[in-house]
């Protein structure tokens, strides 16, 4: 059964159509790649999926426990509540806060005490904070960041910052994880760590992943299916081998034959 269904999604900014008539279908448990040349509209699609932009037309439906839900046009925090989490192309961590606080903030929606409890420190406040801290530490432990929990996010090395962003997205308990160029700027060593992390996420958390990436060797290696965008339209989709030999994809990246 498909987890995410995108039907004829279009987004125009004034006269510019950044995304036009894009349809996608993601099954539960898949790892899907979204590729395309610079400016093809990949990040715009992410922004539409996560509620940063409202679609001009088209539908986005996410399968949840309570049946299919239309998420196009919802506010980002509501989309997150329904089960979509993302990372950003240029890292957007809470830089001046500790690693632990970054995670705890992402757990905000599953905190079970109200404002008065926090202001007057009821027992529930202490119990919930204790639980929250334990869960955050457990999550950091799984991703080997536990020993850095008290460090400020901005003091982590680049690779770990990208890593932390993924862990932070995981803390919102998503069913679908969107990764926007997770390997950008990483050295080969960091990229192989990332591959491991993505594999771990899928195995241990039973997650579906959609990722934008320019590192083709990574995409071809780990993605089960790939969608290719060019000038806002979907020009191809299929298995990595099919994409590699697709004429339109090669044209989009390298230009037409002279």
């Amino acid at each position, binding site marked *: 059964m498909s987890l995410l269904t995108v039907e004829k999604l279009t987004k125009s900014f004034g006269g510019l159509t950044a995304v036009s008539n894009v349809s996608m279908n993601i099954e539960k448990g898949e790892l899907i790649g979204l590729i395309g040349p610079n400016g093809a509209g990949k990040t715009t699609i992410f922004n539409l999926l996560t509620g940063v932009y409202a679609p001009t037309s088209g539908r986005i439906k996410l399968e949840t426990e309570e049946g299919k839900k239309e998420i196009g046009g919802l506010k980002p*925090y509501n989309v997150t509540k329904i089960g979509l989490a993302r990372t950003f192309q240029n890292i957007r961590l809470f830089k001046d806060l500790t690693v632990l*606080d970054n995670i705890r*903030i992402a757990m905000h929606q599953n905190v079970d005490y109200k404002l008065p409890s926090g202001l007057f420190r009821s027992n529930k406040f*202490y119990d919930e904070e204790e639980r929250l801290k334990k869960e955050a530490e457990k999550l950091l432990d799984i991703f080997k960041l536990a020993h850095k929990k*008290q460090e400020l996010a901005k003091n982590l090395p680049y690779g770990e910052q990208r890593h932390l962003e993924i862990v932070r997205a995981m803390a919102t308990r998503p069913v679908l994880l969107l990764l926007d160029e997770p390997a950008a700027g990483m050295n080969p060593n960091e990229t192989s760590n990332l591959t491991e992390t993505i594999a771990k996420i899928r195995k241990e958390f039973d997650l579906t992943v959609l990722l934008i990436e320019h590192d083709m060797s990574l995409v071809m290696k780990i993605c089960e299916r790939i969608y290719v965008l060019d000038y806002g339209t979907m020009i191809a989709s299929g298995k990595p081998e099919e994409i590699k030999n697709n004429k339109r994809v090669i044209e989009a990246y390298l230009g037409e034959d002279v």
Partner: protein
Amino acid sequence: MKVLNKKNIITLIIVSVIYAVVQALLASGIISSFYEITIATICINIILAVSLNLVTGFTGQFSLGHAGFMSIGAYACALINLKMNSTAGFLVGIAAGAGAAALVGILIGIPTLRLKGDYLAIATLGMAEIIRVIFLNMDDITNGAAGLNGIPRFTSWLWLFVFTVFTLVIINNFVKSSQGRACISIREDEIAAESMGINTTKYKVMAFAIGAFFAGIGGALYSSYFYFISPTIFGFQKSIDILVIVVFGGMGSITGSVIAAILLAVITTMLQSYSELRMIIYAALLIAIMIFRPQGLMGTKEVTDLFKFRRKDAKVE
């Protein structure tokens, strides 16, 4: 009751000692009645600065209208107190003043908090001016530009201390709760906060309302201490004075605001004998501090953080 842990009990003891020492100094006359005004100013400024710090320092919403909320508290308390000349009237006045300020905070916050940075600063500045002009023109109730006179004085050291501690405890608890962390995440990165499931508008308005609530308390205490209020007291200058304390102490540090409020009040008092030079020295001092410590005295750290470095496995509260 988990509130009664070791740390909180120690805090309670320290707080009681501070109260008792100052009370003893006042009773024995070592602190003369002239310096009593300094103490009242310090307490009121702590309440105002810490509440503004919640909005500007922790939530990252630059507000230039704090004196507006202060005036709502001041007028509400004064008017009630003039009708009900008793301690009960005073407390009702404080509650009404704080409540009214919080309500106005919510009403103004919902439209203005969509703005960011300098735009928000101008909008809040305008809001405070509107409130001031309203008080100025409601002659029948507020006595217009002449102000309200002969407000009964119930603000004593005890009440000043109680409300200052109350403000500090509640705002400290807020910023260390999940709701407070949501506010801090807005300061850090609003887009990321929203995609982590935080309803940013809701939490901005929440911080704004809590800030206004305590500004209302500050204003109420002010009116009941100084016998007299008029719209000019709560002008733009007052908002700036409060903001200076916050920036001086460190945006995002509660103890920083407390230290700054005390220091600035003490400096002002000491400079009183050099009347002509006073403002120049005061201004030069502020410029010097901003050059050498642009993040303010404490930055975003609290006094308690300074002790944590010594312990190896510091607990995060």
